[in-house]
């Protein structure tokens, strides 16, 4: 049965006064030819424009000066972050020894006093879980506000976060996040959602979902984590993200995993196995050891590298000392107010690591019988 598509019908379609089956017919008619589309668009534009008075009034009420001020603050923050990234990149050029190429463990900038915010310290049991960090921050920020959005509409729902990031929340899914986004942007997800994240190097954006935390380096990606499902997946469309365990002591995922666009990382919670998938076939096991652990380093949950993320130097030295079982002595005054961000593989010798730390902090290093001594 063919219905003739008249302007009367198209008008009804725009006025949302048609039953679903007739909507389908109109839609098919519109898609059928360029002439049909043009004709429909003319009507659609008239319809939409007629309803724009309110939008125009609102727009005219916008204080452009105000908007410009906040935009300028945004670009200044970005420029600063870029300058800092450039600084740390230079550091790599100067000091980083040549490394064996490995796509899994890209070289990460090491630098002092630079918050790169790439992720959390991933140092086995010593690691502070994000949940704990969040709790502490909740205490600090008394007026912090936990916002949540639930979608039970039966279709995708778009949610705009205050940092301009856009979340497309699937049906029966929920996100919650804590405002204001001061130091980092943390979102907890149950279900499925796609994130389009506004780039902000100073405030990393992380999605917590079951065992996995995905930290964004400015990008579009989907996280699927149904409460009852065994599998959790992170699919990347654009940019770069890093996936890591929420609590390193509790899951088999021991490494950060970097995704490239088109790649999907799936983690089976029951089998405790993770794997990658490109759009077209081809799987690769993630927790395949990339290299033998250095026998000199205690096998810490099988991690093949360590990361210090803007930690006080004092703490870093203590951890290194424990890790390598070597005494490292230093004067607390010399390392006060120094912070350290770096990523090391367990194959790096303590000599190399300490040498780098010393260089960056203008400390002298002496090796003696029972360990190392750092001094001004």
């Amino acid at each position, binding site marked *: 049965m063919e219905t003739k598509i008249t302007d009367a019908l198209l008008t009804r379609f725009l006025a949302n006064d048609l039953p679903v089956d007739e909507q389908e017919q109109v839609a098919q008619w519109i898609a059928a030819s360029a002439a049909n589309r043009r004709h429909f668009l003319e009507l659609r534009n008239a319809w939409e424009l007629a309803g724009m008075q309110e939008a125009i009034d609102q727009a005219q009420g*916008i204080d452009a000066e105000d908007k410009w001020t906040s935009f300028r603050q945004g670009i200044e923050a970005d420029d600063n972050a870029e300058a800092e990234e450039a600084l740390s990149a230079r550091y790599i050029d100067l000091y980083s020894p040549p490394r064996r190429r490995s796509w899994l463990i890209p070289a990460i900038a090491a630098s002092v006093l630079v918050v790169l915010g790439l992720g959390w310290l991933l140092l086995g049991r010593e690691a502070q879980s994000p949940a704990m960090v969040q709790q502490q921050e909740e205490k600090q920020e008394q007026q912090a506000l936990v916002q949540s959005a639930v979608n039970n509409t039966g279709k995708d729902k778009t949610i705009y976060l205050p940092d301009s990031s856009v979340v497309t929340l699937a049906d029966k899914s929920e996100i919650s996040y804590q405002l204001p986004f001061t130091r980092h942007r943390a979102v907890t997800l149950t279900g499925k959602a796609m994130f389009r994240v506004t780039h902000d190097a100073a405030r990393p954006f992380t999605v917590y979902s079951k065992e996995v935390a995905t930290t964004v380096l400015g990008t579009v990606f989907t996280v699927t984590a149904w409460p009852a499902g065994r599998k959790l997946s992170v699919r990347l469309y654009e940019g770069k993200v890093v996936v890591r365990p929420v609590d390193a002591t509790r899951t088999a995922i021991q490494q950060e995993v970097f995704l490239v666009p088109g790649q999907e990382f799936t983690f089976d919670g029951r089998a405790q196995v993770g794997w990658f998938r490109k759009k077209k076939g081809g799987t690769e096991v993630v927790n395949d050891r990339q290299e033998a652990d250095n026998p000199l380093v205690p096998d810490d949950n099988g991690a093949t590298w360590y990361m210090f993320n803007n930690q006080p130097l004092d703490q870093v030295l203590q951890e290194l000392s424990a890790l390598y079982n070597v005494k490292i002595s230093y004067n607390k005054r010399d390392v006060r107010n120094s912070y350290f961000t770096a990523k090391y593989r367990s194959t790096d010798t303590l000599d190399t690591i300490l040498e780098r730390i010393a260089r960056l902090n203008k400390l002298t290093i002496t090796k003696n019988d029972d360990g190392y001594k750092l001094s001004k």
Partner: protein
Amino acid sequence: MNCYIPEHRQEHLHFGDLRQEAGFGAFFKSNYARLCVYCRFKYGFDAAGAEDIVNASFGKLWEARHQLDPQLPATPYLYKIVDNQSLNLLKHARVQHRYAEQVLHKAGADLAGPSFHSVDLKQLRDAIDAAIAGMPDQMRRVFQLSRFEGLKYTEIAGELAISVKTVETQMTRALHRLRQQLADYLTTGILVVSLLLQH
């Protein structure tokens, strides 16, 4: 509307004028509100969504400003960024909202680029008001109940004690009338549509 750059000058702004913060700021301020309306009209975003797109677009422009040929005009490029940002968002959002509306929102019913670039919002507002106010009484009432109150045809018929057929006729005529009277602001571009339908 606050005008920071006279309209006739604005069309001749080039990328070279945007390299300094002051020049960029003037460009930002004189285009911001108009772009918000543009986004809402063309892609159906709400006020906050439109502002997000506009801010992100200016961000892109700011990042790229040194790479762009200083001799080339800036406004058309800015609109292109806004279009791309909006389309990307919609494409990724895969809004499952009324099949055809989705296609068409994506398609971006074109309010002619160049004619909108310099549109005066107050004039546009007046033109819309005049087009609606100029309708015969019954037509205007029918149209307003549908467009602004969201009533169904049957409800309008009940409210105004007329037949559904009359409502339908009046609505169709009202839309034709608007299309004619607002023609200066409305032009359709079909290019984007056909590109997107291939997906």
